[in-house]
Every structure is written in structure tokens, then in C-alpha cells.
């Protein structure tokens, strides 16, 4: 079946539970096989809180570095930010803000979408 396009969605807020970091470890893991799958990461719902600039990345910076080096993108859904009253100016500059319509396009383009 070979190389696939995988979308990882992060739906839970950072800290309190480990999914914000173990989801990224899985995302890196998916890129680590013989077939180099394309992996995009998008933050949705409460996951959007991870996109805030001040979030401590001590547990995640290696994973994020690995993903970025392989040109895998990190994105956050604009509507999730709006629903949580988070201004776009508060978002880390390495996380791209995209609309729900664009999220849907990523879902449609992916071979599989896996949510954490």
C-alpha cells in the first residue's frame, strides 16, 4: 500500500493529560517507518490551547523539531480559537491558523485521520 497521507488531530488541552505530547510522539512515529508517510498535525477544539505562544514545550520541542524538519505542518483551527476567545496574535508563529473549511480539505486529502 506504501506511502500514505496521515492527518493527526490533537483535540485535548495541553497538560492535565499526556495526549498533547504522546500524540506528537505518535505523529513522529508515523514518519519513522520504511515508507515515509506524510504527516500533518492540526489542533482542534480544546487542542487549540496548545497553539498559544506561551505554552511550555519542554516535553514536545524535539517532536516538533523533527516534524518541521521533514516539512510536516502544524496547524490550528481558526473557529476553535474563536470559540475559546483566543486572539490570533496569541498564537505561536510556527503554527499556521487555518479555517474549518481548510481542515475539512486536509481530512479529505488524507488517507487516514487519527485523533488524540
Amino acid at each position, binding site marked *: 500500500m506504501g506511502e500514505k497521507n496521515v492527518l493527526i*488531530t490533537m*483535540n*485535548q488541552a495541553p497538560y492535565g493529560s499526556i495526549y498533547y505530547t504522546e500524540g506528537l510522539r505518535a505523529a513522529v512515529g508515523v514518519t519513522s517507518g520504511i515508507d515515509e508517510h506524510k504527516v500533518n498535525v492540526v489542533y*482542534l*477544539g480544546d487542542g487549540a490551547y496548545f497553539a498559544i505562544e506561551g505554552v511550555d514545550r519542554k516535553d514536545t520541542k524535539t517532536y516538533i523539531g523533527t516534524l518541521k524538519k521533514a516539512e510536516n505542518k502544524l496547524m490550528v*483551527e481558526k*473557529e*476553535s480559537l474563536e470559540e475559546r476567545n483566543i486572539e490570533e496574535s496569541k498564537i505561536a508563529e510556527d503554527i499556521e491558523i487555518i479555517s*474549518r*473549511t481548510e*481542515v*475539512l480539505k486536509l*481530512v*479529505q486529502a*488524507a*488517507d*487516514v*485521520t*487519527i*485523533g488524540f
Partner: protein
Amino acid sequence: MANVYLIDKKFGNNSLRIAGQDKDAEIVLIQDGIYLDVKKIENSGNKVYAVKDDVEKRGYTEILSKNIELIDYGKLVDLILANKVVNFA
């Protein structure tokens, strides 16, 4: 090929909004996902299923919207393998 959204309650709100905009979506409510209010996506015309076992053991058969089709694990496997899966569980 449809996009089969497997949706549990904890990721339900945001994922239903995405699925509601996807004209190729078929939605399967799984585990506590059967408690989700799918009224907001009923106008999308998307097919909504719920896992029969999850509905019955929660005593929810009569409460669940009649527009939702109950499926067993065999039918769920058919849907999963014949389509693309969008996991929100």
C-alpha cells in the same frame, strides 16, 4: 468512497462540525458518542449510524433519534474497510 467519521463523545462537538460540512461523510457514533446531539448536522443530509451494542447497553434505543441507523460490528467493519476512516475516538 465515503469518509467514515468514527465519533466518540469527548471529541464530539468539533468533529461533528467538520463532518457536518463534509458532503461525503458517513457518521458512526461509537461508545459514549451515542449521547451526542446530532440535530445540528441533520440538515447536512449525511447518513448517521450508531453502534447497536453501545446504544442497547446504555438503554438508549428508544431515546436515540429515529433518523440514526443502528449497526452491528460486522456492518461497522464493512463500512470501515470500504471507506476512508476519520477517527475522532
